[in-house]
């Protein structure tokens, strides 16, 4: 069984976490959890897209006047959310009322679900590296 140095372990955990943030499910795919990766990718992306469909891309408000918890939760989405945040900066796509609220709830939830998957992927990677699990 190969032993990993502490630096290598930390680096691999960082890579898994970064991959999981960049593409939902990619962290699990790296750990050879293909089924989990596909399910996570489909669910997170679909939730995010439903939010954008309901409220338009204007619900992504990373640099606007939204509450801080909205921004933090939306930032947990893949980087495409940050790119959309730049596009919608300055109120180019105004959205109000229920579509705004429901769209924000969906995009925030997809971000928080992605965060859950990032933490889970890093934890699984930690278990694998410390040889506590049968990976």
């Amino acid at each position: 069984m190969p032993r990993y140095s502490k630096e290598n372990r930390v680096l691999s955990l960082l890579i898994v976490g970064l991959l999981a943030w960049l593409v939902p499910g990619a962290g699990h795919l790296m750990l050879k959890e293909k089924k989990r990766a596909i399910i996570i990718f489909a669910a997170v992306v679909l939730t995010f897209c439903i939010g954008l469909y309901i409220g338009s891309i204007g619900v992504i408000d990373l640099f606007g006047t939204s509450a801080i918890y909205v921004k933090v939760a939306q930032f947990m989405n893949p980087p495409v959310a940050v790119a959309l945040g730049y596009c919608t900066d300055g109120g180019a796509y105004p959205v109000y009322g229920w579509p705004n609220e429901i769209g924000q709830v969906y995009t925030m939830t997809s971000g928080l679900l992605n965060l859950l998957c990032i933490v889970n992927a890093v934890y699984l990677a930690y278990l694998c590296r410390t040889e506590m699990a049968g990976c």
Partner: protein
Amino acid sequence: MSMIAAFVMASFTVPEKIGAEPQSMLWLLPLAAAIAVVYKATKLPKITAGNFLKETAILFCSIVVIYTIAALVLFALAWLVIE
């Protein structure tokens, strides 16, 4: 740009028309389904189609029941305050 691509992009730049109606609460159901699917995908030790669907359905129903109870409690509180 093809017509289909333009139509898809337009769908994401204009918000849907959703009013403050009881039917709007149905938008909670896809959200509950997404939460149940992702949570069970991270928690189940081994994923098989039957087991995954069963566990997800149980969690989905639990979330909907909790939603309903919370809505009823809030409705009762609002009724008490108004009356």
